[in-house]
């Protein structure tokens, strides 16, 4: 475990917790402009943007639910991933002590909070080797309220009238967002994972939250599908916090992976408006942080 790496990871956590990514802030600003001035929706966007500014300036958490810590580490072959993992744990503990994170790791049986955000599978870390020389660390802080409104569907779903095709997938997403109402801190960002098994469909859906708003899907068919879904979902009128309004979602991201012939899962994950994510690239041990 290297002290320098712990510092670099601590800085990654600090900025993720206190600074909303520019693309998200911009989308919230535009959504606020579309609402009638002085109404509940416009005032809510105003309060959200005020809070984002205050948190950045005061270097305090945007939201008190600083979430699950989800790390993806892309690395050249041969790095010591065990030591890297220990550095992540140390950085999470340090950030919790510095009041940048709320202690969010609770033993489900004893009810005991570890107080450090470190526990079994917490933080959640995935290592992926790649062919490049640098290390890239992606961090997402995923709130519990929005996690609770995620849903997984097994197609065909007779009650929903959803078959194993894009039309069926569309029904799943409409259903999940309608049922979520304002509970996940709308307007949310919707991640959809199609295919895989129970576990990987959810993982894929959540990995989509690393995508930036407005970025195109590299699959043209899914890109068109995302745009169509985005427009449909905003017709629901759920609006910020579920008060009613023109913007129910800020974006929809859909990804696919191969499935077993017998299964067809659609996982829909919900990210709150406070979509906190940050990337760091380590080149020869020196860190560079993304601006978006």
């Amino acid at each position, binding site marked *: 475990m290297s002290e320098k790496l712990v510092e670099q990871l601590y800085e990654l956590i600090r900025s993720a917790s206190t600074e909303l990514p520019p693309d998200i802030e911009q989308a919230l600003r535009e959504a606020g402009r579309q609402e009638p001035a002085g109404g509940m929706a416009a005032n809510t966007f105003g309060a959200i943007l005020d*809070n984002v500014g205050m948190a950045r300036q005061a270097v305090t958490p945007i*939201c*008190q639910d600083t979430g699950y810590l989800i790390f993806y580490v892309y690395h050249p072959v041969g790095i010591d991933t065990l030591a890297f993992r220990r550095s992540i744990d140390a950085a999470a503990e340090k950030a919790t002590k510095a009041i940048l994170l*709320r202690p969010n790791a609770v033993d489900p049986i004893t009810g005991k909070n570890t107080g450090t955000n470190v526990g079994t599978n917490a933080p959640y870390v995935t290592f992926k080797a790649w062919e490049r020389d640098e290390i890239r660390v992606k961090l997402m802080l995923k709130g519990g309220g929005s996690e609770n409104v995620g849903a997984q569907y097994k197609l065909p779903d007779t009650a929903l009238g959803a078959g194993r095709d894009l039309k069926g997938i569309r029904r799943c997403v409409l259903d999940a967002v*309608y049922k979520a109402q*304002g509970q996940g801190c709308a307007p949310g960002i919707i991640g959809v994972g199609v295919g895989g098994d129970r576990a990987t469909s959810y993982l894929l859906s959540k990995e989509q939250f690393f995508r930036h708003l407005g970025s195109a899907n590299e699959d043209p068919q899914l890109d068109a599908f995302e745009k169509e879904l985005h427009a449909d979902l905003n017709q629901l009128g759920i609006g910020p916090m579920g*008060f009613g309004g023109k913007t129910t979602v800020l974006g929809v991201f859909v990804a696919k992976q191969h499935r077993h012939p017998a299964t067809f899962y659609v996982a829909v994950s919900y990210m*709150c408006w406070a979509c906190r994510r940050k990337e760091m690239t380590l080149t020869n041990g020196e860190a560079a942080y993304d601006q978006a």
Partner: protein
Amino acid sequence: MTKLEIPIPEDKIRELKVGDTVLLTGIVVTARDAGHKLMVEERPRFLDDRLRGGVIYHCGPVVKKDGERWSFVAAGPTTSSREEPYQAKVIESYGVRGVIGKGGMGEATQEACRKFGAVYFHAVGGCGTAIARAVREVVAVHKLEEFGTPEAFWVIRVEDFPVIVTIDAHGNSVHERVREASKKVYEELLKK
């Protein structure tokens, strides 16, 4: 905009309508899942004075301790629907006049608000830093060791805490209205 002092008399609560913006000042008690379960199952007495005419806040704050003094650093609302199985009973047995949270609550709470004279105040979810500034003092904390920081009962003094009435004491709910309206659109979209 209405300014209200806590404890809030019943007639003041009954004057409120959905959509009203309110600034709350006075003592508020945070309570989440473990707290509501305890209040219903064991009916402890240590909160009676704070909750008679008082306000519960669904919140698990980020807190800071300087010497013996606690303060709130980030303190937005948590999802209220998790307390739906308990809230009506808590409103009745403690004489609570207001519940602050996010996402709204169900029929049992709505009915308790109507029957016993209480309202549901919606705070803006995610606004942790801004709301913490309205928290002027941490007066006491209960069950901190047992429940942990997010779940403990934090007794706080707030000043001009901004909230919106989304369930009033007359059986009206913004959440019900938006759910019904969105349901119609949802059903239309499914036909496409």
